[in-house]
């Protein structure tokens, strides 16, 4: 009986042991050091693949070109040649099946992102053709007059 002193210790050890047992069941098997150090590489390995499998939404110009070759050809030589299709037509995601029509953005706000006049020296913004929103044909969509694929071309 004189070793009753150790009883709290046994309880403590039991508690710690239960944590180790819980680890076996609750910690994923691939949890460990997978990078160069414990500091930066301690993680669940399968999470890397989970992030790689995240769905792509913006498929890019090459993807559009597979079906819409002639539309892309129309951009040749245009000042908008560098503008990504999906910036205006919207991310393709699962287009064309089942998503047949993409949400084309014709809003003035989209054009104004680049073409609203900002009187800033020393930036490329100043080099872009720009308008003052308040004074330039406020009630119309820009695409009413300007061909978005080749903005030098005006519609009457």
């Amino acid at each position, binding site marked *: 009986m*004189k070793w009753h002193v150790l009883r*709290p210790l046994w309880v403590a050890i039991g508690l710690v042991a239960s944590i180790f047992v819980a680890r076996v069941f609750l910690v994923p098997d691939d949890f460990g050091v997978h990078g160069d150090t414990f500091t930066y590489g301690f993680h669940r390995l399968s999470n890397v693949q989970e992030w790689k499998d995240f769905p792509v939404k913006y498929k890019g110009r090459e993807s559009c070109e597979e079906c819409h070759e002639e539309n892309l050809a129309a951009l040749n030589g245009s000042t908008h040649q560098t503008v990504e299709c999906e910036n205006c037509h919207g991310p393709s995601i699962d287009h064309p099946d089942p998503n047949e029509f993409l949400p084309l953005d014709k809003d003035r706000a989209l054009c104004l992102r680049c073409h609203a006049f900002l009187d800033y020296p020393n930036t490329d913004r100043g080099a872009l053709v720009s308008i003052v929103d308040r004074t330039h044909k406020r009630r119309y969509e820009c695409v009413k007059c300007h061909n978005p694929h080749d903005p030098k071309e005006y519609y009457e």
Partner: protein
Amino acid sequence: MSEELIVHGIEWTVKELFVYPNEYIYWSIQIVMYPYMTGLVAGAFVLSSLYHVFGQKQLKEIAQFSLVFSLALLPVAALPLLLHLQQPTRAMEPLLTPHFTSAIAAFGIVFTAYALIVLSEIWFVYREYFVAQAHVLKGEPGLANAMSRIVYRVLTIGAYDVSEEALRVDKKAATILAAIGIPVACFLHGYAGFIFGSVKANALWMSPLMPVIFIMSAVVSGIALCMLTYIIIMEWQAFRRRRKGSGVEASEIKGAEKETINQATRYLLGFLIAAISLEMLDLIFRGYTAMKSWDILRSVMYGKDFVNIFVLQYTLGNLVPFVLLILPGRTLKRTVLALLLVLFGVFMMRWNVVIGGQAFSLSFSGYMHYEIPIIPHSLETFKEGLFGALTVIATPFVLFWIINKFVPSLRRDAHKS
């Protein structure tokens, strides 16, 4: 925007000038409560150890109370963290996959170790009482008594030996545990300071002095809370005994012992001076070295947070109680007022560190104001608002009331030796 799409922090953060888009006051009232409560735990334990280890006889009464009270405070130190987590169901993960380069990972381990030390010490101090109760309740009729007896039997962990030899061993074990407990308590709180002090991105927090400052103010607040609760409970008991009147001798109606309070006050003042000195050193050093961040820090400390820091924390929370305690002819009422102010001062110190550290943008070009949610309209605004904080404050007293039913820390006859 639907309910679940509310950005965490947007409801209580007001931005001024330029603040990075993702910056909000992510660490709000619960993270103020966390070091405050941890500090109270550590302080309460240190106070009890002053008697158990260093044999400060005048502190005997308050020491037993502090020990049990620190147990009641213990779960409450973890409660704010739990309330603050965005994924509270994953709260056990720091124990499952501790990433030891994080100061928070140590929390699970230090906290568990500390909890076991406190529990063991209480077990050794009160084992004799548990055994006695288990025997006394043996023949008593009624379900309540039977249940109590089961609790006491569990509490003895099967150790029924109350021979003089065994009790001597108990006492020795309690002393050893109290001695081990002091560095662990300091470590528990010091690392809470480290959590903040090691954040290099935060200009206000990053300081090697932070852990030491936290320990000092922790002891101050712990001692203050123990003294305060002790005085209130003792006065209340004395008041009740007086009302009952007959059969009580005048010598028993003594209320809070003067000597105990005097001695505890001396320790309180000592730690208070240490805390303030360190904080001043930190402040002076920042001003003198005037690193890149000093411009924005100065504008926060001497401008936006001036009232919080210099009026509420240093003047009302430190200077006034210091004068109140040191002036001769101290009465119990004055002591109580001073203790309340000390507790308030330490709370403001935590507030000014946690909220003050987020009062300016990482860009050093703007400010953020914390508008504490008063009336909760969602779980989030309850948890990280006034009522969440009040819940945290109330919990230790409820716990103490429950624990005290089984571990009578306030009865003078409970522990004879």
